[in-house]
């Protein structure tokens, strides 16, 4: 489907249903699509499962979504940080569920979902509590854990520039989970700092091709 250029973040997140799994890009605040998350809070979807590397920093972005009580479960690698007080409080009160996933396995599970891979064997986590209950297999003399794809109904990602066809480029380490999340959700929404004309991005430098991107919104601040 053709990428839709949205007028504002509210239009970009329209239609997210209750109970959705939402992939949220960013590593800490770098690449975090804050305007899209703020719009999702206004939109009102609740009972969400959020997949993101962290579980919110400070009081904005993902932390604000958590504080608004919209998140039933967080799937992430690193919830506990100096500024993760919103998540910490909810978790300690038993108001949010946590599935902890090693960071590389988190990325690869989404990559598998986007690439049509049914499951994969991974050596990370063997012999640790995070592999408990999972199928294991010895391959080339080394133990591996069977990991399943992780798919989203929606992905909210932050990128640097988009053209009107939805091709994306990122900036520095704000790239992080954006490209892999863009492949792994039914509806992919990108918040970008600038929308440029078709032909203005160097095709050799495009990181996420527009085929993956459903909606783009420019957020200049």
């Amino acid at each position, binding site marked *: 489907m053709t990428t839709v250029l949205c007028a504002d973040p509210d239009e970009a997140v329209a239609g997210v249903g209750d109970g959705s799994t939402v992939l949220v890009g960013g590593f800490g605040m770098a690449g975090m699509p804050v305007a899209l998350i703020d719009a999702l809070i206004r939109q009102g979807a609740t009972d969400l499962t959020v997949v993101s590397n962290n579980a919110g920093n400070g009081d904005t972005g993902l932390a604000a979504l958590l504080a608004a009580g919209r998140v039933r479960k967080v799937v992430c690698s690193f919830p506990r940080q100096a500024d993760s007080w919103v998540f910490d409080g909810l978790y300690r009160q038993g108001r949010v569920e946590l599935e902890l996933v090693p960071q590389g396995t988190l990325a690869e599970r989404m990559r598998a979902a986007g690439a049509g891979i049914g499951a994969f064997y991974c050596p990370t986590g063997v012999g640790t*509590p995070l592999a408990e209950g999972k199928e294991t297999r010895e391959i080339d003399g080394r133990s591996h854990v069977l990991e399943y794809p992780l798919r989203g109904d929606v992905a909210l990602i932050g990128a640097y520039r988009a053209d009107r066809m939805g091709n994306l480029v990122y900036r520095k380490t704000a790239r992080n989970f954006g490209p892999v999340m863009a492949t792994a959700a039914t509806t992919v929404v990108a918040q970008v700092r600038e929308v440029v004309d078709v032909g203005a991005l160097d095709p050799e430098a495009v990181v996420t091709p527009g085929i993956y991107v459903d909606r783009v919104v420019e957020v200049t601040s």
Partner: protein
Amino acid sequence: MSTRTLVAGVLAGPADLDAVPTTAPGPLDKHAMAALVARDIPAGSFVNLGIGQPTLVADHLPAGSGVVLHTENGMLNMGPAALGDEVDPDLTNAGKVPVTELPGAAYFHHADSFAMMRGGHLDVCVLGAFQVSARGDLANWHTGAPDAIPAVGGAMDLATGARQVFVMMTLFAKDGTSKLVPSCTYPLTGLACVSRLYTDQAVFDLGPDGAVLRETFGCSARELVERLGRG
């Protein structure tokens, strides 16, 4: 290099202990430990320094070492911490600290960054730890305390994927117990993955046969082994 003497849970006869060199007059501080780790990183290595204290190793890599730093959030040839006008919210290290890029830097997404680790392309990673076993098991992500919020990040991927895993930590916990143990009691990060342990008191090689003392700081090998035995 040094005489091989097994310690911590797999104690061998004391005959060789007197041959282990004491190479500093007192325990090392974190900067001296970082300098020691930096000394042992081969020139031209691709290296990940995790988060927190091990990132100090970067300050001690000799100029011209050709060591390329990898950060899990998608960058090779990471430079030092950013200061003043250099701070860019789009450019941080794994600890979310603003950093800089060096000439020849490359950015990539998370699945690629961890494929690099898992695929055995990183030569060395340096991690902190709560406990390390004499055979190289690592526990560094969770104390197991019921009220603790576990966070694993990239620790398991690094422990499993890097070709060599070095750990940098104090040898004794605040309560005086040894963090080098016969078998970890904290939840594991990885099995038999740590090959070298740098502490404020001593450096050890770890492997299937146990911990081997290489050098000590501020105490003799014999005194240290006695303390470890008590811990």
